[in-house]
């Protein structure tokens, strides 16, 4: 039976898959830029050892055997870039879109940790380290205003994103969610469970879906109300099967590490700042690590592009 279905499925795939134009001319310039970012990060000499054992799972990650940095690495280009090591003396090819400076969020205590009327966007910078390569991505998300993301400090890669409210819409049960933000863990759980019950194909995935959505709320950062993020944290820590342990992230920031096991067998590790209820660092069991730094800002560096109504699913 599977053979017949597989045969017809492959026929269907071969008919359906469109020709995807790949802009290969951008690859080598992007690679060179990423190499500079990686080396800049390594130059700062971050050591992060998360030698924490939680629920029988040990997580130790180490980059370079150098002293712990007390400040986060500056990994984005500044308006007046300083020379960075590169193995190529050649200038960057001119085929690239001009890279407007993307300011790195200030993770110091003075950085605005919540959006305001004057600073309605949450700028979240994610530094991903995997297989010895560091990449960066940036998102600018507002509650209701057009939002966007970029990768590798390249404004040419700008993609539209859902607003924070649309993100919540996609998580909350349509009956329970009336646009009012839940402010306690029990109400939040009710809303997330209703959604998961309606759309989870596998009942076993319900609980992990609820927990992953609670974690996603923490990851959204200061664009969501602090009371909602606190509710998400309390939902997580009150759940069976979630372990919580003190930990320090790769930038030396203190927090609590939560370990979630997803329904597909993967595990997700996140270190959460429990003062502001925001994710500082996360890791799946694919050995890549995300380091997050966020702050409230007035807006993104360019006007966000419009959302493509035909995009069926994506990041």
């Amino acid at each position, binding site marked *: *039976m599977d053979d017949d*279905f*597989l045969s017809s*499925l*492959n026929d*269907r*795939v071969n*008919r*359906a*898959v*469109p*020709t*995807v*134009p*790949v*802009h*290969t001319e*951008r*690859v*080598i310039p*992007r*690679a060179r830029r*990423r*190499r500079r970012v990686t080396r800049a990060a390594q130059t700062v000499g971050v050591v992060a050892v998360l030698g924490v054992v939680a629920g029988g799972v040990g997580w130790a990650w180490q980059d370079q055997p150098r002293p712990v940095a007390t400040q986060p690495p500056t990994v984005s280009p500044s308006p007046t870039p300083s020379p960075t090591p590169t193995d190529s003396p050649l200038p960057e090819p001119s085929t690239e879109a001009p890279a407007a400076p993307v300011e790195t969020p200030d993770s110091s205590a003075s950085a605005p940790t919540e959006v305001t009327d004057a600073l309605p966007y949450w700028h979240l910078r994610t530094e*991903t380290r995997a*297989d*010895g*390569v560091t*990449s960066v991505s940036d998102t600018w998300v507002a509650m209701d205003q057009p939002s966007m993301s970029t*990768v*590798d400090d390249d404004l040419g*890669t700008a*993609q539209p*994103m*859902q607003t924070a409210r649309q*993100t919540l819409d*996609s*998580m909350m049960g349509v009956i329970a969610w009336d646009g009012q933000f839940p402010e306690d863990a029990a109400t939040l759980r009710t809303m997330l469970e209703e*959604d998961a019950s309606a*759309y989870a*194909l596998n009942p076993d995935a319900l609980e992990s879906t609820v927990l*992953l*959505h609670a974690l*996603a709320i923490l990851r959204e950062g200061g664009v969501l109300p602090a009371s909602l993020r606190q509710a998400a944290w309390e939902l997580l820590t009150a759940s069976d099967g979630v372990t919580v342990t003190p930990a320090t992230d790769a930038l030396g920031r203190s927090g609590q590490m939560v370990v979630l096991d997803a*329904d*597909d*067998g*993967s595990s997700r590790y996140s270190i959460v700042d429990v003062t502001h209820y925001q994710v500082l660092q996360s890791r799946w*069991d*694919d*050995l*890549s690590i995300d380091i997050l730094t966020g702050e409230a800002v007035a807006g993104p560096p360019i006007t966000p592009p419009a959302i*493509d*109504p*035909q*995009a*069926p*699913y*994506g*990041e």
Partner: protein
Amino acid sequence: MNDHDLTIDPILSGPPADKDTEFTRFMTTASPALARTAWLLCGDTHQADELVQQALVRTYLSWSRAREGDPLAYARRTLANLRIDTWRRRRREVLTDPIDLPEHGDDRDSARSHDRDALTRALATLTTRQRRVVVLRHFVGLSEREVADDLGISVGTVKSTASRALATLRAVLDPAGPVDGDR
């Protein structure tokens, strides 16, 4: 033909070339197959372009290591492990009725357009790991061992994940077909 049939060896055994020239030849040959895999993983041409670029960037950065083995496999493995979260748009893809979808203005083949929509909808019902496994195992044509190696999971997990994923796809694409358990 599936992606597994591609041969990259002539690129690497051709006339001596500097790294960028050699890698550019590799990209030219490999990118169509990678783009097909990427589209199946994400269901969108723009995002597929971006995913392939990201995979090629990482391959370029590790080119000396990648070219020693099978560079296409290296790039594909990188592509398959890129982070593709699906939860953000889940509500929309589930709630959108096919009749509400806009027509593909540049696609004159309505049957193909219908197949494409149906396929993306069906793939969207899978978890990220299920989609990765079923794409690599059945649409790219890798062996179970190769899929396991690419994704860093056991062969047993590949088997069970692929089985559940196919059952889900069949339920969505072929609801009148045999029920799960007939395998």
